[in-house]
């Protein structure tokens, strides 16, 4: 039994933590939150230099050629630091789409630049409020050109290219959905910055007016590819959430030890102690479930889809729980702009939605358990 990261992997995490402590204090997060700056360019360059943008990209394509366990460890640190950079868009999504479904040419073109941080990639998917289902994909693809709009695109303001889900023919089912790789630096693409619940991460609406696009993966298999990539991204995001949950718990614990009321630390009141104990429980379960996801992702186990939903549901619950109650432990001060609590609260709610909501993942988890049990029977 060796259900733990290796010493080397832990060391890599410690290194990332030191780096982020220096380059990404919460003042750096606030700098993006409070300005029109869409991301922290210096931090992004630093991450590229550390090699963190190409951890799983093969060395032949300019990456480190390491595994997903290493990426999980880094993801946790990014989450802990609330890093205001397009890491999840470029690394969890764009890179994974290319690795899962990209042609050799596409890989050769984009992976080295992604690894070097020279380009930023993202995924453009939702078109309206509500669960994104095959029938809601209405952006149309015709003769290599895309027409329509995508909303809530992470890093849509700054991405150089995007993977875009589109419908190539009539109908409304999953088989009609294909994926396209689109260079966003063309006139037929209009970007509109969106105001969101977490301005420390930029989002935009993208309008495509006959934008040139090339297919990614087999046409008609778009939905199946994106489900695969979402599963992988869900595990990586779970580590981001685990990092955030842990930090929110620590903040709350530290404040409870320091803040005095009625002549004693508020952390000596059972109401606060038990709230923190419950946060610890959530964070611990999320971490353990995350490890299960990391194992499945790193080994390509057949349990991957189920493990992804497990990690996702648990991590979303934990980060939302810890971030919410971190404010509560801080009382009125926790609701000031000056305190950092709201940064975690905002991020926890952003990450709860960016790959589809908790309800959808709950449903997926049980559907997948059911499929496994049926197969086993």
């Amino acid at each position, binding site marked *: 039994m060796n259900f733990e990261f290796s010493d080397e992997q832990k060391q890599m995490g410690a290194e990332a933590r030191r780096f982020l402590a220096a380059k990404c204090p919460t003042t750096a997060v606030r700098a993006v939150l409070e300005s029109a700056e869409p991301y922290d360019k210096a931090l992004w360059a630093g991450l590229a230099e550390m090699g963190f943008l190409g951890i799983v990209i093969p060395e032949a394509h300019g990456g480190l050629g390491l595994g997903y366990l290493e990426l999980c460890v880094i993801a946790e640190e990014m989450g802990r630091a609330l890093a205001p950079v397009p890491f999840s868009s470029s690394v969890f999504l764009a890179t994974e789409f290319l690795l899962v479904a990209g042609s050799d040419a596409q890989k050769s073109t984009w992976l080295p630049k992604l690894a070097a941080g020279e380009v930023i990639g993202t995924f453009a*998917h*939702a078109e*309206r*409020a*509500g*669960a*994104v*289902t095959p029938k809601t994909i209405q952006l149309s693809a015709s003769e290599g050109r895309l027409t329509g709009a995508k*909303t*809530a695109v992470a890093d849509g303001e700054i991405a150089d290219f995007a993977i875009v889900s589109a419908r190539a023919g009539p109908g409304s089912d999953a088989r009609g959905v294909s994926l396209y790789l689109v260079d966003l630096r063309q006139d037929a693409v209009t970007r509109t910055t*969106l*105001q*969101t*619940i*977490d301005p420390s991460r930029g*989002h935009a*609406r993208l309008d495509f007016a006959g934008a040139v696009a090339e297919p990614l993966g087999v046409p008609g298999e778009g939905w199946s590819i994106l489900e695969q990539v979402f599963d992988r991204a869900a595990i990586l995001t779970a580590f981001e959430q685990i990092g955030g949950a842990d930090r929110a718990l620590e903040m709350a614990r530290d404040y409870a*030890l*320091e803040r*005095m*009321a*009625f*002549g*004693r*630390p508020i952390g000596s*009141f059972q*109401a*606060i102690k038990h709230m923190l104990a419950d946060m610890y429980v959530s964070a611990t379960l999320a971490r353990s479930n995350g490890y299960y996801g990391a194992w499945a992702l790193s080994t390509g186990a057949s349990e991957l889809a189920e493990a992804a939903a497990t990690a996702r549901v648990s991590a979303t619950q934990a980060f*939302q729980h810890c971030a*919410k109650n971190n*404010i*509560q432990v801080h*009382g*009125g*001060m*926790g*609701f*000031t*702009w*000056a*305190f950092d*609590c*709201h940064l975690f*609260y*905002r991020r926890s*709610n*952003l990450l*709860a*939605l*960016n*790959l*589809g*909501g*908790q*309800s*959808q993942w*709950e*449903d997926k988890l049980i559907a997948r358990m059911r499929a496994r049990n049926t197969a086993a029977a």
Partner: protein
Amino acid sequence: MNFDDTPAEAAFRAEVRTWIDANAPMELKADLQSAGFGSLEMKGVDAMSVSKAWQKKKADAGWACLHWPTEYGGRGATPIERVIWGQEEGPFGALGGVFIIGHGMCGPTVMAFASEDQKRRYLPPLAAGEEIWCQLFSEPAGGSDLAGLRTRAEPAPDGSGDWIINGQKIWTSGAHYSDMAILVTRTDATVPKHKGLTMFFLSMKTPGIEIRPIKQANGQSGFNEVYFTDVRIPDAQRLGAVGDGWKVSLTTLMNERLSIGSGMSTGFPELFELCSRIETENGLAVDDPAVRSKLATWAVRTTGLKYTGFRALSALSRGETPGPENSIGKLVAGPTMQEIAMFAEDLQAQAGIISDPEIAAANGRFQAMLLRSPATRVEGGTDEILRNIIAERVLGLPADIRVDKDVPFNQIPTSARA
């Protein structure tokens, strides 16, 4: 058991309705009805001036501070009449927001402790909205522990009998637009904390007062910090005896706006409406069994609060004092609102992050609710303090163990490291 007015109540309601129909600023009604969380925004008008205008109109016609005696600007109305007024005033009640602290907390304190001359001088303009009051109570070091305040009031060295105030208050609603304030201070730090306090009232224009708005986590600024540097207050503006400030404060706190029957919002009707329009993977959200199960939980909390309010109203209508059941309001509504906001986001999925009212579903109401709801669970008593209050005052359980009881204030530990 019925929801009907008594004949007297019905007559009063008719009178109110007639006057409001004839006098209320109907042109603002639509904007007032859709007002969001924590802010009163109306296109093309200044919220403060229309608020003051409506209050003055009410006062001139005898409809301001209904339950106050007429000689101080009120109407001498019964509690149930006041509730009926509130029901009929409806959305226009939002125009009273800036006066709530003054009418609900400062006014009653002045009424109980000021001299007759002072009452006749200050209460009528307070009722008429001509002078706005705020209360200077909370401090950085004392959140839930209100009595742990440190702002000092010391006798002026010139022997005038005046007091000199130094210190800092926080979470003061409306300090920046207030004319007057009530202020609780520490006049003796060598006695246990509840015993060394003294209450005053003062003009917010007094030299030495500095007001700084607090930016909230959701970006709004409804509260202020107020700093005092050698602020001088005549002894005549003392409310109650020296050292009696805690007792006077309790008068203030117990006079918090009678929220009975008004019902605290949980956001449920808005969520139900959203669910009637948005789709999940199983079709229309309101027909999705998973959604229904959650909606049902919130539905019965919402109706439970509503009918709890009706029970209290019934007590008022019979001339009785409502029972303790109203203490559950914010404790239920606050966390429910937060759960509802999170679930409404969940239903919107990826696009749920968009907070721009021009684009987001339901005009961004749920995103605003998400960002505002943590404050609801803290302001005016945290969930934890409210549970303590229910446990102690309603169920009769013992108070928490008090390590600072009987300890001179200046010997109470102020740091965990001390």
